[in-house]
């Protein structure tokens, strides 16, 4: 499959996608609005719990670590050391001083990012992409926009797969990726051009395929998969609303 969707039999997977979309939108919105680091962390904690409930903790934390670790390091260095507005020095190495207030700002930004990245991945990992697109269109998003969303979700796994293929091919032709960091980065440069070109080519072919399957037809679209609103959806929505409300108030 081209998406990050992880097929599992769980309560979270079975939720109506609209519930997850709303939850994600609300948390993303609040992540930008809310300042307190602890509240933001509670939102992330909620996503973490959902990851366990969805039986995908391994994949979830692996992806999160992969994306968030570089961000954490960058933010800590940037705000803890380089932010000129920060003043409270807690430690000094040679000419670099680490500042507490800078660190706090850095962690706050990190908490914001973590909160909305976490919930986004819960949505993507646990929602069948067809349902996601269907729900988005039913919620009023034009189908083109809904499909762009899907294409974006598909883009990363596709790119990874392509990169791996091209790298294998280049290694088979004697490209060696070893040595120090600079050498490694240099070694990846020949990978980039073919990667970008083939992605563009494929994007073109993909858009042709969509045309041929009447995607841009002016007909009103129908949906094959049945989407039901179950009692559990109502109950879960209420519980989630209470939790999110609680986090805002505390």
């Amino acid at each position, binding site marked *: 499959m*081209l998406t990050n969707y992880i097929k599992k039999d769980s309560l979270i997977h079975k939720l109506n996608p609209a519930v997850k979309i709303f939850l994600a939108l609300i948390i993303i919105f609040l992540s930008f609005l809310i300042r307190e680091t602890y509240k933001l962390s509670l939102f992330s904690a909620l996503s973490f719990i959902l990851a366990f409930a969805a039986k995908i903790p391994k994949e979830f934390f692996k992806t999160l670590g992969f994306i968030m670790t570089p961000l954490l390091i960058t933010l800590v260095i940037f705000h803890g050391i380089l932010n000129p507005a920060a003043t409270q020095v807690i430690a000094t190495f040679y000419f670099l001083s680490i500042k507490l207030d800078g660190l706090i700002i850095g962690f706050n930004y990190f908490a914001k990012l973590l909160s909305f990245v976490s919930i986004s991945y819960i949505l993507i990992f646990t929602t069948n992409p067809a349902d996601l697109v269907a729900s988005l269109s039913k919620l009023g998003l034009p189908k083109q926009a809904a499909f762009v969303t899907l294409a974006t979700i*598909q883009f990363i796994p596709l790119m990874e797969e392509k990169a791996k293929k091209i790298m294998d091919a280049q290694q088979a032709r004697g490209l060696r990726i070893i040595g120090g960091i600079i050498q490694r980065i240099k070694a990846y440069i020949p990978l980039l051009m073919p990667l970008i070109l083939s992605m563009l080519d494929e994007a073109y072919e993909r858009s042709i395929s969509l*045309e041929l399957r009447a995607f841009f037809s002016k007909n009103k679209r129908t949906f094959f998969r049945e989407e039901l609103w179950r009692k559990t959806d109502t109950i879960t929505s209420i519980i989630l609303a209470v939790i999110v409300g609680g986090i805002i108030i505390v």
Partner: protein
Amino acid sequence: MITIKNLNFKYSGTNNYALRNINLEIKEGELAVIIGSIGSGKSTLAKCINGLIPHFVNGIMSGEVEVAGIKTADIDISDISKIVGMVLENPLTQLTGYGTTVEEEIAFGLENLGLIREEMKNRINSVLKLLDIEKIRYKDPFDISGGQQQRVVLASVLAMKPKILVLDDPTSQLDPSGAEEVFEELKKLKGKQTIILITQKMNIIRELASRVIVMSKGKIVKIGKPIEVLLDYKLLKRNNIEVPAETELLYKMNYNKKIMEMLKV
């Protein structure tokens, strides 16, 4: 079923015409095979039949293309897609990835046509049965063999019930057994559906084609029965087309000329 009159096409940004003065008539139920060397214009002609030219691809077009009595220039691609179904080389870029099962992949085009669920189910059942891929119905389309993927693409296109099916080198990215799977499906469809097949696989032509169209440098240089074309050593050589081993042999033994003469009478 398909009528092409004085068709010329030049891609924007290029100097040479990719198609020159194409005239072609394809009847209902025919299985016409187009052969020709690399860059001879086969895919460009296919794009003209399904409306990608002039609706999607930029360039200069003159002449007329009619499918099922309708001029392609006059209607949208999405409407043409109900008349002309198209299968391309690479199954991976033709699977939309929209659904997570084969069944949902097939449903994608039907959803776009706005069909009701019952009708979708009926059509999905019948194409799965026709192509004998019922057992992969609930499989992930990205998790099956290339041959199976191409059959799913074919199923997705057939479910839209096109009157004409155009296949542009549908087996070039498949291994021999995958290619065989796809050709087996075409044998089933032969006669029930108007089909245009572009392929490099000479051995399949003899079995499948009702007519062979030979293209070179943007022109149609020959339209004939499979045997007429396959045994014409000079025609194939002149147009840089792979010569079947038998033809080569016959030519070297000088039988070829006699056979050609026999065929003419």
